[in-house]
C-alpha cells in the first residue's frame, strides 16, 4: 500500500465488454428494486398519517408493507447495485476482464427470483417480523447460493490481480463480498432454522442488523467511494496510511454498535454498554473516511457531487449514532421516528448517494456510452439530496416531538399522532421526491443502455 499505487491500471478499460451484460443486468435489477422499494415505502409513509390507506388490503397492511419496503431496498437495491459495482471495481483494479460472467448472470437471476419469492411470501403472511430479515425461510437458501455464485467472479478478480498491491477499495469490496454469506447464514441458522430462545432472538437479530450495515452495506458503498473519488479528482488519497486503520476500525468495532437499540430492554445490560463504547470508538473510522475523501468536496462533475453529499451524510450519521447511543439521549429518541430518521440518514443519505455516485461514474464506462441526458442526472442529484435532507429533518422533528410526548404519561397516542402529523406529511413529500428522482435515474439508465450512442473509447478512458 503505497501512495503511487493509487492510480488503478488503465488497461482495464479494454476489459469492459466481458462483464458488460451481467453487470448491467444486476444494475438494472437494482434500479428496478429501488423504484419498487420507493413505492412501497410511500404507501407505508402515507399510512402513518392516513391509517385507512390500503387498510382493507391484507397484502399491504402497514406492518407488511414496511417489511416489504425494507427488504426490497436492502436486498434488492443495494444487493444488486452494490454488488455489481463492487465486482466492476474489483475487475478494473485487477486489470483483467471480469471472469465467470456467466456465473454472475445466473446468480443475479437466482438472487432476484429468490427475493421475489420472499417478498411475495411477506405479502402473503409468511414474513418473520425480524428487522432486516423479514424474508421467509424458504427464500433464503436460494439467495445464499446465488450470492455465492456471483461472489466467485469477485474472488477470481481479486486473486488474479496483476499486481499484488491492494487498494483501499479492494479491502472494502473484498470485505463486503466475503462477509455477507457468513452473516446471512449465521442469521438464518440462529433465527430461523434453529431459533435461539427468548430474548436471544432480539440479540442475534440486532447483531445481524448491525453486521449488515457495518460489514456489507457500508463497505459496498465505501469501496465505490474510495475508487471513484481519487479517479475523478485525479488526486492521491490524503492520509492513505490511515485508511487501513479506518477500515479495520469499521470491521472490528462496527458490529458491536448494534446493541444501542436494546438500551433499557430485557437483555444483558453489557450489550448496550458495549454498544455505547463501540459507537464512540467508531467515530475514528468516520473521521478517517472524512479525511480520506475530503477531495470529494472540491467540486467537479455530478458523480463527485453525489459522492460529496453521500460522504457527508455517512459521516454525519456516524456522529448522530454516537450521540443517540447515550442512555440520556436514548431516553427521548428510542422507539420513535428519530430512529427512522437516523436510519434514513445512513441509508437514503449515506449509502444510496454514494452508490449513485459510483453508478454515474461506472455506467458510461461499462456500457461504452455517455449518459443519454445530462439534465436528468442533475435533476436526480437535486431531488435525491433535497429529498434525503427533508426526509431526515422531518422524521427527526417528528421523532423528537413523539419522544417528548411519550415521556409525558398524560399524552394519549391519538394526541401524539396529531402532533407529529405535519412532519409525517413532510416526510411523505420527501419520499415522493426521492422516488421521483430515482425515476429519472431509471429513465436515463434505460435510454443510455438500450439506445444511447457509442462514445469514443478515449472519451471514457479515465
Amino acid at each position: 500500500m503505497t501512495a503511487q499505487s493509487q492510480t488503478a491500471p488503465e488497461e482495464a478499460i479494454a476489459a469492459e465488454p466481458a462483464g458488460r451484460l451481467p453487470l448491467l443486468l444486476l444494475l438494472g435489477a437494482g434500479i428496478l428494486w429501488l423504484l419498487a422499494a420507493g413505492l412501497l415505502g410511500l404507501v407505508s409513509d402515507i399510512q402513518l398519517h392516513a391509517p385507512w390507506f390500503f387498510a382493507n388490503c391484507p397484502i399491504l397492511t402497514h406492518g407488511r408493507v414496511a417489511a416489504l419496503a425494507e427488504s426490497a431496498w436492502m436486498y434488492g437495491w443495494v444487493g444488486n447495485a452494490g454488488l455489481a459495482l463492487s465486482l466492476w471495481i474489483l475487475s478494473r483494479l485487477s486489470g483483467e476482464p471480469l471472469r465467470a460472467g456467466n456465473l454472475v448472470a445466473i446468480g443475479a437471476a437466482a438472487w432476484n427470483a429468490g427475493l421475489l419469492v420472499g417478498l411475495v411470501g411477506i405479502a402473503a403472511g409468511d414474513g418473520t417480523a425480524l428487522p432486516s430479515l423479514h424474508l421467509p425461510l424458504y427464500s433464503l437458501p436460494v439467495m445464499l447460493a446465488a450470492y455465492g455464485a456471483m461472489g466467485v467472479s469477485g474472488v477470481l478478480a481479486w486473486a488474479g490481480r496483476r499486481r499484488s498491491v491492494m487498494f483501499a477499495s479492494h479491502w472494502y469490496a473484498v470485505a463486503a463480498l466475503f462477509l455477507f454469506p457468513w452473516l446471512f447464514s449465521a442469521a438464518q441458522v440462529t433465527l430461523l432454522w434453529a431459533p435461539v430462545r427468548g430474548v436471544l432472538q432480539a440479540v442475534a437479530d440486532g447483531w445481524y442488523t448491525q453486521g449488515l450495515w457495518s460489514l456489507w452495506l457500508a463497505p459496498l458503498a465505501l469501496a465505490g467511494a474510495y475508487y471513484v473519488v481519487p479517479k475523478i479528482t485525479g488526486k492521491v488519497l490524503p492520509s492513505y496510511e490511515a485508511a487501513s486503520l479506518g477500515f479495520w476500525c469499521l470491521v472490528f468495532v462496527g458490529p458491536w454498535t448494534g446493541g444501542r437499540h436494546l438500551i433499557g430492554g430485557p437483555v444483558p445490560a453489557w450489550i448496550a454498554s458495549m454498544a455505547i463504547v463501540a459507537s464512540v470508538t467508531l467515530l475514528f473510522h468516520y473521521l478517517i473516511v472524512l479525511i480520506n475523501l475530503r477531495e470529494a468536496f472540491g467540486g467537479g462533475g455530478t458523480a463527485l457531487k453525489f459522492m460529496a453529499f453521500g460522504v457527508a451524510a455517512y459521516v454525519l450519521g456516524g456522529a448522530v449514532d454516537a450521540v443517540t447511543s447515550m442512555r440520556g439521549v436514548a431516553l427521548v429518541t428510542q422507539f420513535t421516528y428519530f430512529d427512522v430518521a437516523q436510519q434514513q440518514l445512513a441509508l437514503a443519505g449515506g449509502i444510496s448517494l454514494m452508490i449513485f455516485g459510483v453508478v454515474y461514474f461506472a455506467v458510461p464506462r461499462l456500457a461504452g456510452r455517455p449518459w443519454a441526458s445530462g439534465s436528468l442526472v442533475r435533476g436526480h442529484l437535486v431531488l435525491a439530496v433535497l429529498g434525503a435532507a427533508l426526509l431526515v429533518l422531518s422524521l427527526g422533528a417528528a421523532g423528537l416531538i413523539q419522544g417528548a410526548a411519550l415521556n409525558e404519561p398524560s399524552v394519549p397516542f391519538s394526541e401524539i399522532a396529531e402532533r407529529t402529523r405535519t412532519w409525517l406529511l413532510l416526510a411523505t413529500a420527501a419520499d415522493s421526491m426521492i422516488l421521483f428522482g430515482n425515476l429519472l435515474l431509471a429513465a436515463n439508465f434505460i435510454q443510455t443502455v438500450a439506445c444511447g450512442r457509442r462514445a469514443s473509447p478515449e472519451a471514457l478512458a479515465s
Partner: protein
Amino acid sequence: MKNGFFLFVGLFAAIGLSWAGIVLGSYAQLGALAPYYDDSEAQAFPQRLPGIAAKGQLVYRDLNCASCHTQQVRRPDFGSDQARGWGERQSVARDYIYQPWVQLGQARIGPDLTNLQSRKPTAPDEEDLMEMLYAGQGAMPAYRFLFRDRLIVGQASDHALALTGALRPGPGHEIVPTSRALALVAYLQSLNTTYDYPEAKPAQGGDQK
C-alpha cells in the same frame, strides 16, 4: 497491507469475534434460563402460552404488529413506561423464555403491549379488542380483513360484534371474527407479565442512570 491472507484472517476474526461476543456471550448468560418455581403458589413462572394464543402470536407476527408496538417495559426510572400503566417492573429475559417468536419491537407508534391484560385501571376485554381491530382507533388502522360480514342464517353467532352507529352491519347481517381474529385476540389477552421474579425487582434510582 499487501498480504491477502492477512486480510482474510482479519475479516474472519472481526465477524467471528463479534458473533462470539454478542450472540454466544449472551447465550452463555441466558441460554439456560429456567422458569422460576414459586413455592408459595406451587407453580412455575412464566407459564406457557395457551394453544390458541400461540396461534395468535403467529398472526401478530405475520401482520408484523411489531412495526408499531413494542413488548418490552423499561425500568420505572427510565421513561414513562410505568406511569403509562404498562407495567410496575421492567421486563426481564425470563418473561420471554416460552415465547416461540419474541416480539420486542423497535417503535412505539402505538402503546406497548407487554402487560395488556393487567392495564390500570381496566384491561381491555375481548369485546373491546375485537372492536378496536374491526374499527381501528386513532392512528391504528382497521383490520376489517380479519372479520366476515355475513348473512345471519338461523341463530346469530355468539362471536358477532356488538357494533353501533355507522359501524352497524346491514339488516340481517352480522360481523363475525375469523379464526385468525379469535386467535389474535386470545394472544393479546394472554399478554401479562406481572409475576415478580427476584431479578425483576424494580431498580430504583441508582448511579447507572
